[in-house]
């Protein structure tokens, strides 16, 4: 079942259209930067964006910073929100269940294909951005070393390691989103509602993060530590934000996947 889900996810045109759309904004940004040479002033705008003007190879990180606040979570919410609700809507859920696929197994297969989608999306964004950065923005330093966010110099090997860790971190953040969307997907029979519910939670979280009165809530909000991957490029690395981010997404994963499982395995399938 897991293999079947993976292949049908990869074969579905929708998967690739979503990923292509995800890559459109970084591409536009890269072209604009290359043409105008006007970056945001250091410390403003998306992370790494001012740095890429001097070094195009940093563009994968900048691209992640661009898609992370909205595009990537929306894409994940759409795909994960459709996982069960989409089958219900098409009337295929009942035929899968009587074929018979166990409800837990179906949910696990859907989770696996969602994780694969998140990984794929993050990797494609990173690779596409690397190519765009090299081609459009060029690389600055022939020695290959890079200036860290703290101002010291990072070797190319260090840079690659940290980038891989950052990609992993972003993936985990998106899995939290996927878990929320998967839960909604077991509740409603419309994939769009499940995705919108998830996006509403994320936007609500972002709004509360900007509100001083919500101070006590902020450490628990799902989007609180998303941008902590930037801390991986300080010298030395500042781990506390990253670790808290992993812990809080872990909690979201457990709670929402648990709720999705509890709901889906006990509910009447009336579609």
């Amino acid at each position: 079942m897991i293999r079947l889900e993976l292949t049908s996810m990869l074969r579905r045109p929708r998967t690739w259209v979503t990923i292509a759309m995800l890559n459109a904004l970084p591409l536009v940004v890269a072209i604009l930067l290359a043409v105008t040479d006007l970056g945001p002033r250091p410390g403003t705008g998306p992370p790494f964006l001012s740095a890429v003007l001097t070094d195009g190879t940093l563009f994968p990180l900048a691209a992640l910073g661009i898609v992370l606040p909205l595009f990537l979570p929306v894409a994940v919410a759409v795909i994960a929100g459709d996982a069960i609700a989409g089958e219900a809507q098409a009337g295929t859920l009942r035929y899968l269940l009587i074929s018979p696929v166990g409800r837990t197994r179906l949910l696990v297969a859907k989770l696996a294909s969602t994780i694969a989608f998140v990984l794929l999306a993050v990797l494609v964004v990173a690779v596409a951005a690397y190519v765009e950065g090299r081609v459009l923005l060029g690389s600055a330093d022939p020695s290959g070393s890079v200036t860290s966010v703290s101002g010291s110099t990072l070797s190319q090997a260090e840079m690659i390691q940290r980038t891989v860790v950052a990609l992993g971190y972003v993936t985990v953040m998106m899995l939290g989103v996927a878990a929320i969307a998967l839960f909604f997907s077991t509740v409603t029979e419309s994939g769009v509602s499940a995705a919108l519910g998830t996006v509403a939670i994320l936007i609500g979280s972002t709004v509360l993060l900007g509100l001083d009165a919500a101070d006590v809530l902020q450490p628990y909000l799902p989007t609180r530590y998303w941008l902590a991957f930037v801390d991986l490029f300080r010298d030395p690395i500042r781990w506390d934000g990253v670790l808290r981010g992993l812990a809080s997404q872990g909690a979201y994963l457990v709670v929402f996947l648990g709720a999705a499982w509890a709901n889906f395995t006990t509910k009447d399938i009336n579609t």
Partner: protein
Amino acid sequence: MIRTRGLTKRYGALTAVDGLDLDVREGDVYGFLGANGSGKTTTVRMLLGLVLATSGEIELVGRPMPASRASALPHVGALVEGPGAYGHLSGRANLATFDRAASATSRRVRSRRIAETLDQVGLDPSDRRPVRTYSLGMRQRLGLASALLRRPALLVLDEPTNGLDPQGIREIRELLLALNAQGTTIFLSSHLLAEIEQMCTRVGVLDRGRMVLQDDVASLVAPTGRVAVHTPTPEWAAEVLGARVEDVSGPRLVVVSDDAAGVNAELVGAGLRVDEIGPLRVSLEDVVLRASTEHAGARA
């Protein structure tokens, strides 16, 4: 093949299915009749473990449901409230998906069986168009194909001929009867009495969630020991037949007799002309309507 005891489903205050005792035996073509909203689909969903019963027990192909769904369902093919398919895939690919989801058939066997089954239900196995472009009847046929694909011992079909043209209805009826002759037990729900009467060996009638009748069709519509006569001169015929005449209405007489040919000879011998004569049968429709109104009366 299917046996339920006290099967009940409540949706809040509404009791959709109420204390149902179904009994479908091996080799039956069982017709499950009932008006719109009487609980047929709800029952089918409970049988297949999609909807969880409020109370009662279900045994499907000899195994308790929904506890043994993993071992029972591979022997069951089903169509529940219309077909369901992935619109972006072809008919073939749809069947392959459902088959792959649950069984480990080899690719060659699967592809041969899919082609055979599509052909059986009257779809072109070489059609590569996505199901999105299929007509209503084509989708219904595809749904039937997916129920038949694994040659199940029991077919549970909810309104199988929905959306089919008269020709299609006939083809499907013949296909199902042929499968039954090869040993497949068939449970089909419908509100089309004529369809049930033509196919089924047993019927169960549902009225607002309650079973009001469950019996063999042959005994329900058994000869009544009456002969119906149509003649242009009913008064004269009544004179000839005397006390045996039970009822006269217009040109039609009901005569107490097991022997239509004898009655005919008598009338013709007396010089009468007969338009039509034959043993009187009750239609399934009469039986079902009577059972439902009796039930409504008992309730009131």
